[in-house]
């Protein structure tokens, strides 16, 4: 379930005016920006941008980019974009890093629906004049590259059907691969990048039933292996995305200093999806409400925006 709190009646014209007012003159009224944008869904945000452009012949995003700064600016920028466009930006940022953030690419390709992933691929092309898969291919290598390209290129069947025979045999294949540490990467990549999500869940369940432990537990251990570092989040995202997001949030806050990139990314991308469920998981796991943990670890307008997206009442 989503966490953002959207009022019943919304006037995008009034919103555009309010944002204009917040940006005009000396300084910026960040609170006003948060109170408008933080309570609008993707469709409304898009309409506000269009209204703003109409009224003031200016790109709202560019205006905000010039008025804001730091973590707050990054968060607002990511929040205001269309979900597909946002994912394209996140992917590109992840790819272009000196040491690419493979897990972000995994996250995007494995937790979005097949249609959503297609939309991301289109948005990526429109923005960057390359296909997502060619940029991933150009910036990664080896088996990690094979896995990542396969994951971003996948168009999984979206149906509920499960073939238990296949679940059985592929659970075996995965177990062999995991047990031996001599991973048969080809087979793992094939299974994880082509099967439908329902089919994969059946396979993972079968694995757990047959071996008394989840496949992710079996993959824990040495983090030296590049392929493993990408494989683990892949299986986690496919198996239980909410649990995966809880873990990312937990790690982003727990670390000395906060991983704002990860914190922003998860909150912004899940606020309209399943952040509520992730919050419940977080509380179960950590005995501390997520809002509280975020409030403790962040400050200023950045903190205010995150808390708004988390559904905290003003």
């Amino acid at each position, binding site marked *: 379930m989503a966490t953002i709190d959207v009022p019943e009646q919304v006037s995008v014209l009034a919103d555009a005016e309010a944002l204009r007012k917040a940006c005009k003159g000396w300084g910026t009224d960040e609170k006003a920006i948060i109170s408008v944008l933080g309570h609008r869904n993707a469709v409304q945000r898009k309409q506000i941008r269009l209204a703003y452009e109409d009224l003031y012949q200016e790109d709202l995003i560019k205006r905000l980019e010039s008025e804001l700064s730091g973590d707050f600016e990054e968060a607002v920028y990511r929040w205001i974009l269309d979900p597909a466009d946002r994912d394209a930006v996140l992917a590109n940022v992840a790819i272009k890093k000196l040491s690419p953030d493979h897990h972000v690419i995994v996250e995007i390709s494995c937790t979005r629906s097949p249609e959503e992933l297609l939309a991301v691929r289109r948005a990526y*092309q429109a923005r960057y004049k390359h296909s997502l*898969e060619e940029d991933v*291919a150009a910036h990664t290598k080896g088996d990690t590259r094979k896995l990542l390209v396969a994951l971003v290129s*996948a*168009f999984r069947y979206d149906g509920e059907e499960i073939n238990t025979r296949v679940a059985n045999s592929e659970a075996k294949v995965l177990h062999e691969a995991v047990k031996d540490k001599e991973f048969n990467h080809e087979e793992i990549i094939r299974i994880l*990048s*082509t099967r439908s999500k329902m089919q994969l869940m059946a396979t993972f369940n079968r694995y757990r039933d047959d071996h008394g432990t989840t496949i992710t537990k079996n993959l824990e251990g040495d983090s030296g292996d590049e392929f493993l570092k990408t494989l683990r989040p892949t299986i986690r995202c496919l198996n239980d995305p909410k649990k995966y997001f809880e873990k990312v949030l937990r790690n982003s806050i727990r670390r000395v200093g906060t991983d704002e990139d990860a914190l922003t990314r998860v909150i912004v991308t899940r606020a309209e999806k399943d952040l509520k469920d992730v919050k419940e998981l977080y509380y179960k796991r950590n005995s501390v409400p997520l809002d509280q943990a975020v409030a403790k670890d962040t400050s200023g307008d950045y903190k205010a925006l995150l808390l708004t997206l988390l559904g905290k009442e003003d």
Partner: protein
Amino acid sequence: MALPVHIEALDKAFSGIGVDEKSLISILTNSNEEHKRSLRKGSSKLFIEDENGFERWDQSSIKILKHQFNRFRDAVVLSLLHPWERDARLIEKAIRKGPKHYNVIVEVACTRSSDQLLGARKAYHSLFHHSIEEHLTHIKGRERKLLVALVSAYRYEGTGVNEDVAKSEAQILYEAINNGDKNKLLDHEDAIMILATRSKQHLQALYRHYSQSYGKTLAQDLEGEGILKDTVECLCTPQTYFTRVLEAAVKEDADEESKRALTRVIVTQKEQLVQEGFVPNKIQDILLGLYKDFLLASIASGDIK
């Protein structure tokens, strides 16, 4: 008594691609039992003398006849299907029928636009309740990796090619073909990545650099390499590929699959063929009947508006 000219006409009615329906009507509808018996006796291709004293229809020619009569039907169906369903069904059939048909998968994946290929993938979900990639799992051979990569592509279609990258990737391919183990080309990760992820414009630039740098075309260097050559041709020089397929269809010794390609290529490439001013000189003589009319009319210019 059937005149030799009738027997000849009967044979001829079945001896091309398609069936000469008009000729058959004129020969058979006025034919009494006497006449037909001498037709059967005279036609060595279709009938054989049975030991029990009658002219029996030769088993293998019945099968061929079935194919011949179905050509018009297949052309009609293929022509009417939504392109997405059409392409999804072509791919599914090719996967089922085996290695000799994999070029059809390459053809669809590489000659359609990015959005058309996406559409085919969606249609495949609806029709077969699996993704194409999943069904390609059934392929045990080394072609699987390349095929999965090709059908999964959503290539950028804009202009703007980095010539330096195209040139260096031409070199990667050159070295893969000439210095490496040619048998292992299908396992060459970089080569597959280049062919499966780069835009067609980029690959066409790569193709040019290859010819300029090495004095032969990439396709020539892949002679004998089956679907790898098909891949390169479909992406870089589709006209060459389709011309080759059409000409193979009308050769003397063409097998049934090659002949079927005629329907597939003419129907699916109709717009392009018309645009290129394709003249069916080499193929029209062997076509017969309604099938011939259908194909030739398809590529005569002028759509119904």
